[in-house]
């Protein structure tokens, strides 16, 4: 296992380098100075631009520029935002907690929904309840997330007035107080619900099928013969075995959440990484855009890596080498 982990970790290094080269080339294709953001785009004096270009090393050959950029990036120097005039690193760090909160809450919602539905379906397969759950899941899978978000805002925010329809916290509340955190939770709940409900289908169906399969195994028959209550067999014996494969989904969720966050955050005007990303595109804040692209690619890669590694940890039957 250790050997495989090291091998897999080393395998991601060329991937990271390749991705960084792609991002670098894309940044170079973008108009203007899109990596450091030091050149003021409003100052069109050719002498100023030439001076800055020389100072920033833009007249160096491309490989040297790439090397300078990547060494800076690894050390946390993401350049300067042309819109906010401060370090991109600080801007991103300011938004990370919001996205993290959204991601965690939506994952919890996914798990709660999927477990209750999956366990119900798995225990009573081919009944009306099971079919209804399968139907609901199918429809949730088909509805595009942004349509679901718009409809959710329409019903829950405007008609029922249960949730606020934008932002991450009430502006008037003092920072750090108990109400502040409560308001934060209140704001994150609706986007998290939309994001979380979208991911339940695969979990639920996987859990259902796994429970059905496990319920036919020998250990279940033994438990029954010994007189264990059916409820205990399902909730303890079978569930323990069925949860394990689900762990591997976590890594892929990571990647899916990134895409989901971009859409949901922008619809709910929730100030997180996704919205910052879209904002940087519309305001042509290229340094922020490129730093985020690099960061999100890195996170996706990490998610895939975690999924792969968990796969081996969870199921020792899979031969890794």
């Amino acid at each position: 296992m250790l050997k495989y982990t090291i091998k897999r970790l080393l395998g991601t290094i060329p991937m990271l380098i390749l991705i960084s080269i792609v991002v670098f080339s894309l940044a170079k294709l973008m108009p203007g100075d899109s990596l450091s953001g030091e050149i003021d785009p409003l100052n069109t004096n050719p002498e100023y631009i030439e001076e800055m270009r020389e100072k920033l090393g833009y007249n160096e050959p491309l490989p040297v520029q790439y090397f300078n950029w990547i060494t800076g990036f690894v050390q946390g120097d993401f350049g300067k935002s042309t819109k906010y005039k401060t370090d991109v690193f600080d801007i991103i760090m300011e938004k990370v907690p919001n996205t993290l909160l959204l991601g965690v809450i939506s994952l919890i919602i996914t798990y709660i929904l999927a477990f209750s539905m999956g366990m119900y379906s798995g225990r009573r397969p081919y009944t009306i309840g099971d079919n209804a759950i399968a139907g609901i899941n199918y429809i949730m899978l088909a509805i595009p997330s942004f349509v679901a978000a718009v409809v959710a805002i329409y019903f829950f925010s405007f008609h029922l007035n249960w949730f606020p329809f934008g932002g991450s916290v009430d502006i008037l509340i003092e920072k750090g107080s108990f109400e502040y955190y409560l308001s934060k939770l209140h704001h994150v709940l609706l986007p998290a619900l939309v994001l979380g409900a979208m991911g339940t289908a695969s979990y639920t169906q996987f859990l259902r099928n796994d429970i059905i399969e496990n319920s036919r195994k020998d250990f279940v028959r033994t438990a029954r013969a010994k007189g264990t209550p059916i409820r205990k067999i399902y909730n303890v014996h079978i569930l323990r075995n069925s949860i394990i494969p689900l762990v591997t989904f976590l890594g892929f969720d990571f990647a899916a959440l990134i895409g989901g966050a971009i859409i949901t955050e922008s619809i709910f005007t929730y100030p997180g990484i996704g919205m910052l990303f879209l904002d940087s595109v519309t305001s042509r804040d290229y340094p922020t855009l490129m730093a985020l692209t690099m960061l999100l690619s890195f996170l996706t890669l990490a998610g895939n890596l975690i999924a792969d590694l968990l796969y081996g940890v969870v199921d020792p039957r899979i031969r890794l080498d």
Partner: protein
Amino acid sequence: MASSTTLTQQKKPERSLSPWQIARKKFLKNKLAMISSVFIIIVTLLSIAAPFLAQYLSPLPDIAKVNIGSMNIPPNSEHILGTDKSGRDVLTRLFYGGRISLLVGFSATLMVIVLGTIVGSIAGFFGGLVDNILMRFTDLVLTFPFLVFVIVLNTILYGIVDGLWVLIIVIGILSWGGVARLVRSKVLAEKENEYIMAALSIGCSPFKVIVKHLLPNVASTIIVQATLIFASMIVVESALSYLGFGVPQATPSWGIMLSSANEPDVLQGKPWIWMPPALILTLTILSINFIGEGLKDALNPKSLR
């Protein structure tokens, strides 16, 4: 007389059904898939016929023109689904929107399938170094966060190529990885069969073996995958258009129509503007998915139905 007819009937032995005929029979029996197919056909026909239908649907058939006199009219007998904030008829735009959404979805799917099949079949058939290089490249494409790169590439290419095609090409370039992996795994299993060896031994070129012998046997998998990709491509197009990074703003696609719900005023008070595209989009996706599931069942020789 009677005995002679039975004799002639016996002389003509009934041919057993070909795999495709069996699949067709199974598909026709699947009610959900059939209803979905009819729905999709109707939506497609209405979209194609939009320019001819427009003059009969409403008094304002021009979808590009802003009509100041008739802004935000709720549904009535003249405008069945009302008009939007620029005074354009919603129903007419809905049909025109179908053209764009289906066109983008279809072209992107075609591109994804063609690219994925080429890469996957070459990698699977030749194996070895070719396989290794192509698959590592596929891995790389698969690691890119899709939405992020679509938006970045779109920003770069915007203005160089015509708006609609930028989107199709960008989506196509970024999403063929899954198909390539799938086709490769199928080809790997299929090429071990004797008929491939036979074809090679009588001197068929690799190209001919792939196109004539391998691909027809992988086709059913590709068809099912294409259906499911078609649905997801329509979602991608509308989601990007909704966010403002898809087709140009002036083009009436379902995503663009939905993006008017960004204004709280429209979202809250004028549901007739955004609800029709939301509904038809969801129904279309649902139908395509049902067709895909139906095809999967029909083309699977092991399924009982």
